[in-house]
């Protein structure tokens, strides 16, 4: 489920962010408890708690004492804004660099993008 090559708590945080972005987790929806999460993915509960804590610090989740963790009302919008900011650098610029390496002209890319409209 999680790979061994990077901290699992960061992978947990990323997975929950993906679920929020895709709408699988809605605003003010309760997320699984640390123990449920640990049991489901077979990871140490302290690791799961660390992932959740990271999301609380980023404002993606909020805590209700004695009840559990919930998705912040503005979490999806915030995550989308962050992703949009990174989109051109991480996706478009990387695509252009790859195209140059393998000899695809920008005109060809533009035609393809136009075709997708």
């Amino acid at each position: 489920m999680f790979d061994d090559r990077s901290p699992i708590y960061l992978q947990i945080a990323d997975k929950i962010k993906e679920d929020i972005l895709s709408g699988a987790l809605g605003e003010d929806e309760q997320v699984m408890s640390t123990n449920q999460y640990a049991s489901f993915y077979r990871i140490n509960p302290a690791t799961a708690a660390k992932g959740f804590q990271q999301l609380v610090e980023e404002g993606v989740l909020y805590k209700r004492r004695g009840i559990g963790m919930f998705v912040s009302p503005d979490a999806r919008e915030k995550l989308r804004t962050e992703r949009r900011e990174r989109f051109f650098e991480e996706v478009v610029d990387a695509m252009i660099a790859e195209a140059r390496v393998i000899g695809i002209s920008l005109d060809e890319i533009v035609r393809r993008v136009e075709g997708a409209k």
Partner: protein
Amino acid sequence: MTLSVEVRDLTIRYGDTVAVDGLTLKLAGGKIYGLLGRNGSGKTSVLSAVSAFRRATSGAVLVGGAEPFENAALTRQICFVRDKVDAQDTDHARAVLRMARALRPNWDEEYAQALLERFDLPIGKRLGALSRGAKSALSVTLGLAARAPLTIFDESYLGMDAPSRYAFYEEVLNDYMAHPRTIIISTHLIEEVGSLFEEVVILDKGRLVAHDETEALRGRGVAVTGPAGAVADFTAGRTVLGDQRLGGIRSTTIYGQLSDEERARARAAGLDLGPVGLQDLFVHLTAEAHR
């Protein structure tokens, strides 16, 4: 209730062989710890001393602040689980269970029955008639149902097949969450069980190589790959765990955290920085070349 474990300058010798060599280690308790080491690294010797099965040649062992050796009140709180049960081949599994029930103050009979069912154990048989896997499963059942404040699984899974091992990992995790206690699991099957550990201790040749939070260790190693000269410049003066060459390309595994500035410098030099998993880190840290 959980128990802390402290080992101070522990040395264990068998004749001329030094199995544990001046080891100092402190586990606060209440967590699942992974004890990793190659065969002959001293894992079993350390754990035997902690469980009072063996006396230290020199140094101190403290469990919950007290010496466990010949301390019956304390050893009832410690459960040491190997890959087979400490009993005669002619004993019936049922008798072994009855004994554990009588000896263990926190024994949970209902849980023991559930585990017997899960592992499909024939309790009417004599131990000698059980398969290796069944012996391991019986041993693990005794260890889990004892609910001892300090529970040690010393490569207990050895005879088990993969489905049984995963059942064992699941039971350890869920029962630990329901009944928090100190659990130490010694293993070298790190990929299977690494995600269960809150902290990891790595031994080699009877000495401590690393003790840290698992999440901190994950990603402490970095594989630097690129043109040989640039890799050599970047890795100069660092702790090198491994080194490989393929034509003009070199890949060097280093140990230690890199700052953002160092990462940027590596990228600018055309170097690729790759993560190193827990299993790989363990292999590198205990490789023959470092011995």
